[in-house]
């Protein structure tokens, strides 16, 4: 999850997010190397005492600094398209979870077998117990089994919201009247947080998402207990 003074991406909890992090690191390294080179070139050009009043043009260097950027762009485009198509691969999901954005909470529906649905409100700061995270905890978490492809269908009830969980590499707009699909696999158990990512009114910052991933055998116990409770 996020931590104070964080600069980079959160650690990955899904295979796709691992790929995205690798692509990000690759592209950022190229950007940093180029920026360093340009900065150094400008610095030396501006501070040199050498002058040359006879240099007019040079076909050689012009050719090099036309071809090289094109090659660098290809080096960036190849992994980019690879990850892009990987994100769209067909994976037959084991489970479908629907999430509906409301002002200002999320509700979750698990209707593959029985009709399980529940709301997920943020726990107000004054009600937190020690160890819980401010503005991230919810009264009911969305629970999913680990190592299972999960299909998320995301929509909204009133205004546009956005369902995001950075560690899973997930962000999808929740639009009234539209059912947006995304899929993910959670690699290991844990609790993963996200926040509404589309301005939706007064409490936009106070409708977080928390996803709890547990082994499949415990998932069945959880869904039975939730059905009994609700």
């Amino acid at each position, binding site marked *: 999850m996020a931590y104070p003074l964080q600069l980079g991406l959160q650690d990955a909890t899904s295979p796709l997010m691992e790929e995205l992090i690798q692509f990000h690191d690759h592209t950022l390294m190229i950007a940093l190397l180029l920026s360093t080179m340009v900065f150094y070139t400008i610095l030396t050009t501006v501070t040199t005492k050498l002058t040359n009043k006879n240099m007019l043009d040079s076909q050689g260097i012009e050719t090099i600094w036309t071809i090289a950027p094109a090659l660098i762009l290809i080096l960036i485009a190849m992994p980019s398209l690879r990850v892009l198509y990987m994100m769209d691969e*067909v*994976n*037959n*999901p*084991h*489970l*479908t979870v*629907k999430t*509906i954005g409301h002002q200002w909470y999320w509700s979750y*529906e698990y*209707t*593959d077998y029985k*009709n399980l*649905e529940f709301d997920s409100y943020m726990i107000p700061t004054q009600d937190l117990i020690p160890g819980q995270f401010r503005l991230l905890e919810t009264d009911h978490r969305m629970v999913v089994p680990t190592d299972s492809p999960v*299909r998320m*269908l995301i*929509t909204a*009830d009133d205004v546009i919201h956005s369902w995001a969980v950075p560690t899973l590499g997930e962000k*999808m707009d929740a639009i009234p*009247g*539209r*059912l*947006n*699909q*995304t899929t993910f696999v959670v690699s290991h158990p844990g609790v993963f947080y996200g926040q509404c990512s589309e301005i939706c009114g007064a409490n936009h910052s106070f409708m977080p998402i928390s996803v709890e991933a547990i082994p499949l055998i415990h998932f069945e116990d959880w869904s039975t207990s939730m059905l009994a409770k609700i």
Partner: protein
Amino acid sequence: MAEDIKAKLENYHTAPFDTRFPNQNQTKNCWVNYVDYHRCQNALTAKGADTTPCEWYRRVYTSLCPMAWINSVIHE
């Protein structure tokens, strides 16, 4: 055929990938299965046949469609 559909229904986990709707927007997928269930029910009931095959469409639209959408259509 009837045994096939029963086996398919017993092994149902969730709505499978539908090649007619390969992209992000699954609204039509929900709609089409809902409509297909009711058409199937009407057609097989009119013929006096067993409506078990229609169960497949019901399972799929229940998996895909938000409950509020289904309930609002029913109340309309």
